[in-house]
């Protein structure tokens, strides 16, 4: 797969369930790499993924995946993997048997399917446990089986719907590392949906942000990170003086009960803060970089017009 080639293209996609609009005129394109699709619960992430997989028909608009129309993508699905958010594993069979079966269902010959299943289970860290019935696995192990079945047939593109859901911090870290490794070492492109900004930030190259079924942003994660970064300042006294001194220097400050917040800081802001603190004689208690919470971010983004673009 050539770098920069469009793997997924979505054009003015809308999906309605009765009066509920799950996706509203959404357009974006995805190229090689790890792309995060970020949004709160109900933002339309899973709906978008299901339309791309051909599991749902859009109300209007079009979606193509690996050059095929998503609504007629039976052949393309041999090169696509999907890890659903919800339970999708049989409890009575072993992981080895299940992955072998799933590889065959993706078109691999039985002997190859068996080998691939063992190799994939090694990749996701379940090699030793592969002959145990899946019903006896922990949540983390089940998530790994789900990832394994999505990768067992060596897809070109894999959809991961909330892959860290239900995992403890260590399990989450392992899962994110596995996703990064899957792209870095094997070149499999990933669309990774999450409502956790931190997961997306640590794993993805590009980001698509959905809110209430609308696309609010798409682009490089680095750029997005910069835009959403803030500096939080807490002083023991003369907060008003500090605010005035900062505003004199052209720094935009938001004040709340706990302290001051400066949005989208660049390097010069720290110099301004130092000078303002000296000028206002305000004793500094704490100064730390912070990230706007996802809800704040969406409130902020909702004020602007939806920006449509290419996540490339």
């Amino acid at each position, binding site marked *: 797969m050539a770098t920069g080639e469009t793997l997924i293209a979505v054009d003015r996609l809308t999906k309605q369930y009765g009066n509920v609009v799950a996706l509203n005129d959404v357009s974006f394109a995805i190229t090689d790499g790890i792309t995060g699709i970020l949004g709160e619960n109900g933002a339309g992430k899973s709906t978008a993924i299901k339309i791309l997989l051909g599991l749902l028909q859009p109300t209007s608009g079009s979606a193509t995946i690996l050059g095929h129309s998503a609504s007629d993508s*039976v052949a393309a699905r041999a090169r696509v993997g999907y890890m659903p958010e919800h339970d999708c594993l049989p409890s009575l069979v072993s992981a080895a048997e299940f992955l072998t079966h799933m590889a065959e269902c993706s078109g691999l*010959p039985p002997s*190859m399917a068996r080998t691939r299943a063992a*190799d994939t289970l090694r990749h996701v860290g379940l090699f030793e446990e592969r002959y145990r019935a899946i019903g006896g696995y922990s949540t983390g192990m089940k998530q790994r089986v789900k990832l394994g*079945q999505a990768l067992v047939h060596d897809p070109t593109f894999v959809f991961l719907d909330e892959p860290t859901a239900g995992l403890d911090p260590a399990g989450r870290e392992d899962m994110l590392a596995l996703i990064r490794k899957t792209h870095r070492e094997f*070149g499999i492109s990933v669309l990774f949906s999450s409502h956790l900004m931190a997961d997306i930030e640590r794993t993805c190259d590009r980001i698509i942000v959905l809110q209430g079924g609308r696309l609010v942003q798409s682009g490089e994660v680095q750029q997005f990170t910069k835009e959403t970064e803030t500096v939080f300042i807490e002083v023991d006294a003369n907060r008003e003086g500090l605010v005035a001194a900062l505003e004199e220097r052209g720094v935009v400050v938001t004040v709340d009960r706990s302290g001051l917040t400066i949005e989208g800081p660049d390097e010069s802001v720290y110099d301004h803060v130092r000078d303002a603190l000296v000028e206002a004689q305000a004793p500094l208690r704490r100064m730390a970089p912070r990230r706007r919470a996802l809800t704040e971010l969406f409130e902020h983004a909702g004020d602007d017009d939806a920006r449509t673009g290419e996540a490339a």
Partner: protein
Amino acid sequence: MTTHTIGSAEPNAVRSGTVFDIGYQRYTDRREGRSRSRRAIFKDGFRIALGFGRGARAKILPWFFIGVLAVIGLVFAIVAGAANRLGGPGTAERANLPSHSDYYGIASIIVFVFAAVVAPELLCRDRRDGVINLYLVRPLTGSDYVTARWASFLVVMATAAWLPQVILFLGLSAGDPAPVAYLQAHWLDVPRFLAAGAAMAIYATTLAMLAASFTTRRAYAAVFLVGLFVITTPFTVGVADEVGGLAGQWISMFNLTNIPVHVNDVIFGDVSQITEDAPARKLGPMILVSWYFAWTILPAFILWWRYRRLSP
């Protein structure tokens, strides 16, 4: 897993080693696409129906029913064989002991209960566990899935239906004082019981799969089907007797247990003990066979249509 064989560079030394490159890697071998997917679903359905690859509990019910059906065939063979040995050739026939044409009438309720109990395993569990979502994102449509599952269960049902008839045929041949003469006189029973068994298997498979397609609970589907077969028999018999005439004959047609047995009677050109008194018998072979096809083709279409809607 890839293996690389390395030869020795030393002269006169025949040493070689194999490097096992284990772990996940890209797959470059052939992919067999949709036909392999269908075969995988078929194979899996067959294994589920017979409990292969599952624990002992999963094997109990299918093998119990297959065993009971086989034992009935064996008992018929032993009784007829003993009669022929003791009373001379043809004694069993003259005494009207149960034979090939009677078998499906007598065993039909066991065949239906077997279908009702085992068929839901092939469909309900996939929907309940969510595995169906993984199938439908592979190179496979909902129609492919349900057709493969139906075919796999049909093979199991046909085998279960034919096996006792084969035992009976072998038993009658071996038990006859003149086995060769018996084979010459009765060879036509083989295609007849194969056709009648296939008719029974197709009917039971289709109705059982259709019932299973409406629920994710295996027990509901099984109880509904068993109830349907058990209740319609006494109900239709009672009402048909009460009403009498042509209307009674048509009411008798709704005895679901008898529908494939009437076809069995048409195939053997004989009336089996269970349909002897059924008013529907007087409607004639054309109507009885057409009725059978209506009760097979319509449920098959509904089943296909329900799963077709799941596919893109």
